[in-house]
């Protein structure tokens, strides 16, 4: 990962941020959905939005959660109520960049690519885009106070089941 010019990020901080991004992707790729809300603050904002809406300032999101509780509710819904064809989603995260630090925390961006594999089908690129994050420290842990996942395409292939 890199920091924007003029930002003083110690090697230790860079390492901790890289670990956060890696652990987040790892929890999802390992199917440990229940761990996903633990990466966020209690009053977090998590949104998955098409670039089209993001650039026009339109608020509708594919997923819109205003608290860790809503993240937990989504996990419960995926586990208990949703019908979906079995699949796996692999998260590739790169170009993590620290863009700013202020009283509200650290502002970061990173690129993501989600590869989807359905039963009896070749793997395919499912979505790609950019995380736009605000990271804070809580109880000695780095976590996301805000994670906006802006995906580049306008079209989602069939359904998004698991978190980005």
């Amino acid at each position, binding site marked *: 990962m890199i920091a924007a010019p003029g930002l003083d990020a110690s090697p230790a901080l860079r390492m901790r941020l890289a670990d956060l991004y890696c652990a987040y992707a790892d929890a999802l790729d390992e199917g440990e959905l229940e761990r996903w809300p633990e990466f966020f603050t209690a009053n977090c904002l998590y949104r998955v939005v098409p670039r089209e809406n993001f650039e026009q300032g339109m608020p509708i999101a*594919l997923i819109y959660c205003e608290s860790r509780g809503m993240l937990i509710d989504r996990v419960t819904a995926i586990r208990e109520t949703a019908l979906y064809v079995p699949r796996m989603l692999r998260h590739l995260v790169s170009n993590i960049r620290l863009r700013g630090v202020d009283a509200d925390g650290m502002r970061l961006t990173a690129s993501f690519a989600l590869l989807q594999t359905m039963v009896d089908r070749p793997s395919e690129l499912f979505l790609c885009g950019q995380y736009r994050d605000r990271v804070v420290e809580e109880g000695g842990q780095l976590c996301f106070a805000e994670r906006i996942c802006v995906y580049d395409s306008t079209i989602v292939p069939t359904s998004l089941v698991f978190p980005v």
Partner: protein
Amino acid sequence: MPSADGSPFAPSETRAGTAPVRQWPDAGSSRIPNWVYTDPELFAREQQRIFAGESWLYVCLEAELAQPGAFKRARLGAKEVVAVRDAAGAIGVLVNRCAHRSAQFCSAARGLVQEFVCPYHQWTYDLGGKLIGVPFRRGFRGQGGMPEDFHLGEHGLESLAVTCRHGVVFASFSNATEPFADYLGGTMLGYFDRVFDGRELVVLGYLRQRIPSNWKLMFENIKDPYHASLLHVFLVTFGLFRLDQQSSIEMDPTGRHAVLVSSKGEQRENDATRQMRAFKSNFALNDPRLLDPVREFPGAATVVMQTLWPNLIVQQQSNTLATRQIVPIDAGRFDLAWTFFGYADDTPEMRQRRLRQANLMGPAGLVSLDDSEAMLLSQAGIGGDEEALCVAEMGGRAVRDEPHMVTETAIRGFYRYYRRVMEL
């Protein structure tokens, strides 16, 4: 005899316009042959008879074309169009094909222009689609140029018939399509005007997904209240839509349009929920703000899902409002384009409620996710045997309005009309 362009061949009849390619298995519409979802020739015939025929096709909301020169691209069946507001404020819908060499002249999804210029040879059109400029039309230094009898007025963009009602834009490739109010009929118009009541609309955003199934399965899904109580565990659990609730299914006289109407119930176990494997009485939300519906329309109904032939679903589920446009790609794929909206006079709380409840809808919707996955499964099964028949006989074989949800009557209504238009 050679034709005017010097070709030795006379123009041939299009195949899609002539004899039906398939034979429907019986006189009714309760058994649906699988080939209606797979046959490419039938798909071509649908494009001609339904999408390019006497239908009002949903294009966009007027709010998306706020000022003169504002345009938005859309796809109506297989044809790309551009909806645009002209200098006088009227909305036109133009086929996105230059009259010169058929290049798509507009590639931005939306924007603001003073005129349309095809990037290939810079043929220029006004906002009404009239051709106003052809570079080197008179040639250069006495050489080249268009023939003397070439008239700009004869080479405008293809333009569709347009009708707007309460902020919603529809277009038709036919000039013989009946007036919109007659096209909907009194009952359907009443439900349409319930959501589109003349108040100014505000677009809240777009979601779009590509579903690997035939486009008609999307209509069938929304015309089928039977599945909703069984498939949608989330809706059922929170009493947002359930078979034991006060409900009805109504159609226009032709059967091509329909509404599903339902009133919210409670999260409580009873005789009906015991038949729904889906029902989970012990599921409580950590953050109840996700479901905090407020009554905002007159009457008891809390859900009204309207299907308008041939490409629109109007969604009112609690406080989440959207148009869902069906865009067929080929026999086995379609795009579903969601436009979420509210009203200009919404309070900030209502606006927030609409955003939260949108979690139930769209390609990651806690409810509609089930539908896109079910359609994927349907098409996968259908592809295995094109001669097999689907059975749509819940509630009998007739087509009539029903005051309950244990019926597939609106699917039968849809196919009764489909057979007529397709001459199948």
